[in-house]
């Protein structure tokens, strides 16, 4: 009994010690593991790409994690992941990383399908999120409070939204906050009086994308540069990628990979 307990204690201790130098250990352990983490906006698409990639490359294991753009970039800087995902441009202090733009994504302003309004101006959107416009009747609908939903501090989508739409105005504190594209969409899809912003790739029949300044968000309008609320989806790497990573990135940028992204409503490099 004593011995058993002893073994357990020793095992526990060894485990804790052995994992303090784990990144190196893992790199050696399995040659074909690629770890990717970061933006929750990019994550679902990366997962899809990985699923397809692994069908043809059975020896590969691709580990895709969320965490957010900033966390992904930090993890990349610490070498805890092979590839970081970001849904915003790099900031000062992050610029030493290599970036690979895998595609572009529009940010759609979405409302519930029952909402009769079809178009807003950029100005109106920013005033809604700034808290200046509080009721739908100010925009020509019923007398009912607007349930605006934003993303949380630190999100790449929010950071792009602030830069492209708010242009320096603050987002009001009274506005609801959700922590992913999916949860924003879920609120908008269930609340007829809600408005939010999500990745264009996630827009489906459950939510309605608004025309902004007369332009409907679509792959075409993004390509032609008419739709302005667009941000890049980036893969960031710290120095050169290893061969495994290169193979995956090559697949992502290939016609097949880009085709998958296009099917998801993203704007790639092929037509």
């Amino acid at each position, binding site marked *: 009994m004593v011995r058993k307990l002893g073994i357990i204690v020793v095992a526990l201790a060894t485990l804790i010690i052995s994992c303090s130098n784990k990144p190196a250990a893992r790199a050696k352990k399995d040659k074909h593991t690629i770890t990717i983490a970061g933006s929750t906006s990019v994550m679902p698409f990366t997962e899809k790409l990985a699923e397809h990639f692994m069908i043809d490359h059975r020896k590969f294991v691709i580990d895709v994690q969320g965490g957010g753009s900033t*966390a992904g970039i930090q993890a990349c800087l610490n070498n805890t992941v092979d590839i970081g995902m970001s849904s915003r441009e790099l900031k000062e202090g992050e610029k030493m990383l290599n970036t690979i733009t895998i595609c572009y994504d529009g940010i759609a302003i979405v409302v519930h399908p029952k909402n009769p309004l079809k178009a807003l101006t950029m100005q109106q959107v920013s005033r809604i999120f700034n808290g200046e416009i509080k009721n739908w009747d100010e925009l020509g609908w019923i007398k009912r409070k607007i349930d605006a939903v934003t993303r*949380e501090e630190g999100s790449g989508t929010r950071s792009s939204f602030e830069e492209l739409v708010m242009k320096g105005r603050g987002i009001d*504190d*009274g506005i*609801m*906050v959700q*922590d992913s594209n999916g949860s924003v969409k879920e609120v908008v899809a269930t609340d007829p009086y809600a408005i939010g912003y999500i990745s264009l790739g996630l827009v489906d029949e459950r939510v309605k994308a608004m025309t902004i300044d007369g332009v409907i968000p679509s792959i075409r309008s993004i390509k032609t540069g008419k739709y302005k609320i667009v941000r890049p989806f980036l893969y960031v790497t710290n120095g050169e990628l290893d061969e495994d990573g290169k193979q995956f990135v090559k697949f992502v940028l290939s016609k097949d990979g880009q085709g998958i992204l296009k099917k998801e409503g993203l704007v790639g490099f092929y037509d």
Partner: protein
Amino acid sequence: MIKNPVKKEQLVKWVLVTFALSSLLFLFLIFIFILFEGLPLFHKIGLKNIILGFKWAPTKGSFGIFPMIVSSFLVTFGALIIGAPMGLSCAIYLAEYSGKRLKMFLKPALELLAGIPSVVYGFLGVVYIVPIIRDYIGGSGFSLLATSIILGIMILPTVISISFDALMSVPKTYREGSFAMGATKWQTIHKVVIPAAKSGILASFILGMGRAIGETMAVIMIAGNALRIPSSILDPLRTLTGNIALELAYATGDHRLGLFSTGIVLLVIIMILNYIANFGIKRKM
């Protein structure tokens, strides 16, 4: 295996002491690491600016969490307003009115439900409570009211179980004495049993508060997480726990430190509540 029994006994004792100390070590580590991460920000920004500050914009240098402290207390009291009377009357029913068989069945059944994961409560809140509030009362539904209802239900098992034990531990002679003086059952319960079990019932409320204030995932699903102090029960709000869970995965630098200072404030509140429940009240029992 060590043959000398005396030496072996000594060894065993030391191993067990180490095991017992591990709990203290873990508590210490938790405190140290949360404090270590969060305190530098208190130093940098100032205690007052964090605890009494109204603006939370960690990427822009504002770390005020006063609205979240207020909101945490609001949902906790909201949960108590809903859960305490329901839980207490359920406990009174179980302890004083129900038959032995029903008691044997209901009490464990209620306690089993304490095991239902909080995310399930949150999910049902989103699917059922939030739309009902939105359609029939107003607002977006993601609100203080919805959160209080869900938390109120979540603390029921805690309140029921501990109040029940407190009521059951009131000696039979108290009741018999009261009946002998011609009191009705309710008069006995109301004037004799409840006062005698008062500290246990209070402890159940405080432990329920502890559960409500610490709840996270269910809360971020239904609270709406807005940063302002709600001005009505239909407004969305963000609790301390919600703040941590919403932003932890994303945060770096000062932002992360800000979440750890949120953690410190939460930890302090919880420790005070636990202290009151465990040492202030139980001791009198």
